[in-house]
């Protein structure tokens, strides 16, 4: 039986791993989870694990918060130690967080093949730490599992052997499809006194927006000018920045709330009239739940959602955001779902792994 270790470090990772674990369990793959603790908030982490029915991690590394180098360095050292002890047949890393990079670096140097799920996405923006994590992780990977067809083109342009690339689709989409039936009757918006289809859901957390007061203020201006009421789940770290930008206090229409669990967030996305975000995963989830999305960023690695019409990219500028919002609300729904964003992604991952992971050495 093939033995693999799956690295998770942050919330977007949990969502991607959710559908994989049951698929591994019914196959010939013994998969165990290591939680680096990169984003560790006891309540939120537990809520996510419960919401996603994730098995308890076999190891918790307690890396904690810190700068990029501190997080990556601590996770690398702890993961190397674990890998030397456990000697798995492969290490599966997901996404583009520092734990992803740390796992790939630690494993590749000691000859443990790396499998990267969500490989080949590129924003083209090297000032994003995630883009550097993606570029480096993909070079270290023995097997690259891609969510969209263009990801393979990106990888081949970087000299990755096409034989290592498997177009499995988007596992996050599978998670949405699997969980929507469970929340049919969940009305998460009601708790905030909001009616379905009558509010905008907003998440903004990226340094490119929150570290620049003029951008944060432009976003605040745009949100305050919106006709729809705004529900804005916000990380405690980001809250003071948004308050300083003018989103503080008991504004009648713009409400900052604490982060919510996965299933509540999914329900809030499904029931929103519109989503405004700078998150990668939410651009994809919005596409899946049928809610138009406006992405406030310089660029996106989820170009496919823009091409298919579920998402539009705007700069952090009040009038650009306002225009994006009115376009999104006016645009026809019923966009096409990208190929292989379906309920079989985890099975394709299993099939690729069972086919064998060829080490890079040689």
């Amino acid at each position, binding site marked *: 039986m093939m033995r693999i270790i799956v690295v998770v470090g942050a919330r977007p990772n949990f969502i991607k791993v959710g559908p994989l674990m049951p698929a591994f369990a019914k196959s010939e793959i013994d998969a165990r989870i290591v939680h680096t603790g990169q984003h560790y908030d006891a309540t939120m982490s537990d809520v996510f694990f419960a919401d996603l029915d994730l098995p308890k991690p076999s190891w918790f590394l307690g890396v904690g918060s810190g700068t990029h180098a501190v997080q990556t360095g601590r996770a690398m050292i702890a993961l190397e130690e674990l890998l030397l002890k456990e000697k798995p047949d492969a290490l599966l890393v997901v996404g583009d967080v520092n734990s992803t990079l740390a796992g790939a670096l630690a494993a590749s140097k000691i000859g443990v093949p790396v499998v990267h799920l969500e490989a080949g996405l590129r924003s083209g923006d*090297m000032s994003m730490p995630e883009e550097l994590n993606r570029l480096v992780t993909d*070079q*270290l990977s023995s097997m690259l599992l891609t969510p969209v067809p263009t990801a393979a083109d990106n990888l081949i342009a*970087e*000299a990755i052997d096409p034989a290592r690339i498997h177009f499995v689709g988007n596992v996050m989409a599978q998670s949405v499809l699997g969980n929507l039936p469970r929340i049919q009757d969940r009305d998460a918006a009601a708790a905030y006194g909001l009616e379905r289809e009558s509010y905008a859901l907003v998440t903004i957390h990226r340094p490119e927006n929150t570290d620049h007061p003029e951008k944060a203020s432009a976003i605040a201006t745009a949100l305050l000018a919106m006709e729809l009421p705004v529900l804005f789940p916000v990380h405690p770290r980001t809250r003071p920045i948004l308050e300083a930008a003018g989103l503080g206090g008991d504004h009648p229409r713009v409400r900052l709330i604490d982060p919510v669990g996965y299933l509540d967030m999914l329900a809030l996305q499904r029931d929103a009239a519109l989503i405004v975000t700078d998150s990668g995963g939410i651009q994809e989830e919005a596409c899946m739940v049928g809610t138009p999305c406006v992405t406030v960023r310089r660029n996106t690695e989820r170009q496919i959602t823009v091409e298919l019409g579920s998402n539009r990219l705007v700069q952090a500028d009040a009038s650009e955001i306002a225009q994006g919002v009115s376009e999104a609300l006016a645009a026809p729904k019923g966009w096409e779902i990208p190929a292989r964003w379906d309920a079989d992604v985890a099975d394709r991952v299993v099939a690729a792994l069972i086919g064998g992971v060829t080490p890079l050495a040689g």
Partner: protein
Amino acid sequence: MQLIVVVGARANVVKVAPLLPALSSAKIGVRIAFAGGKRDALDCGIGFVSVFGVIIPAPTWYVDTGSGTNATTTGVAMRSFERLFAAQHPDAVLVCGDVNATFAAAISAAKAGIPVIHLEAGIRCGDLGVADEINRVLISRVAAMHLTPTALALENLEDEGIDPERIHFVGNTVAEQALRELDAAPGNGVVESFGLTRRGYVLAVFHRPDDLADAAWLAGVLDGISASTLPVLMPDAEAFVEAATTAGLEMPSVIQTRSALPHLKMLSLIRGAACVVTDSGGVQEEACVLCTPCVTVRHCTEHVDTVSTGANVLVQPESGAIGAAIGKAVGKRCTWAQPVRWDSAVSDRVARAIRRGVAPLR
């Protein structure tokens, strides 16, 4: 322009030594971050240090890279460099070679938005099972300017999708340093001081920790060398002898061991030898440029040009193959063409390229 030059290991010193005066004359402000271990840098007054006889300006910082596994040294070095770059904000960071500290400096600078200049970029051995090769490939992914020692290295980078405008074929500073040191000390009598005659001995240089940890490799090398009809001189032999003793192997009497020697003595011994047998990257380059046939005991080499031009042969660690290769090499004459731009003008080309500006990655 303010540049931080990262010397990742003792062996990096020869790569940057010729560069530093050239950069200063080009009005580029250079400060050195030395990760090679402070005790190897001996103060020689008036602002210079000597690292095994190679004189460089005194480092401004000695950077802690810890000791231990790949993950530990890389992780510790990442944190140290992240702190240094955050405090200093240089306009660019120059890294050279392929050790863990080089990669750590490169990724930390890239994540801080500081352009990375990579000296000795683009060389490849083709085996990602080699930790240095992983570092080389990764540094190329995050660097903003690539300075290559050979035309082949330039092609390798283009094949990996690196923007050709960012690549400069400058030549080999290791060759430049060797030529400069020997030009300054002609007829220095080093060979005779070891009781040897010109072309009357074999020089053996082995120091790769992975090789020394492999008992079968050691046995093959010792057996192969002991077949030499010429005396064999092995400088810097402590680690080798210790490894052999640990492996229960006896040092053959044909081998004379010595402790570590200053670089000029090493160069003089390389130039005077009938042939060099080694697993060192730098020695392959130095033997090529100093017209001494080289036998490299490794399964691959990143100094492919030294092989294709006829200066170097690659042999597997089997006694018969090594013995035969040494026998052939000692009779060989230096008829090979020197690789292009392995000359005394490399550092001027580097200074010109950097003077023209280092465009940050998008």
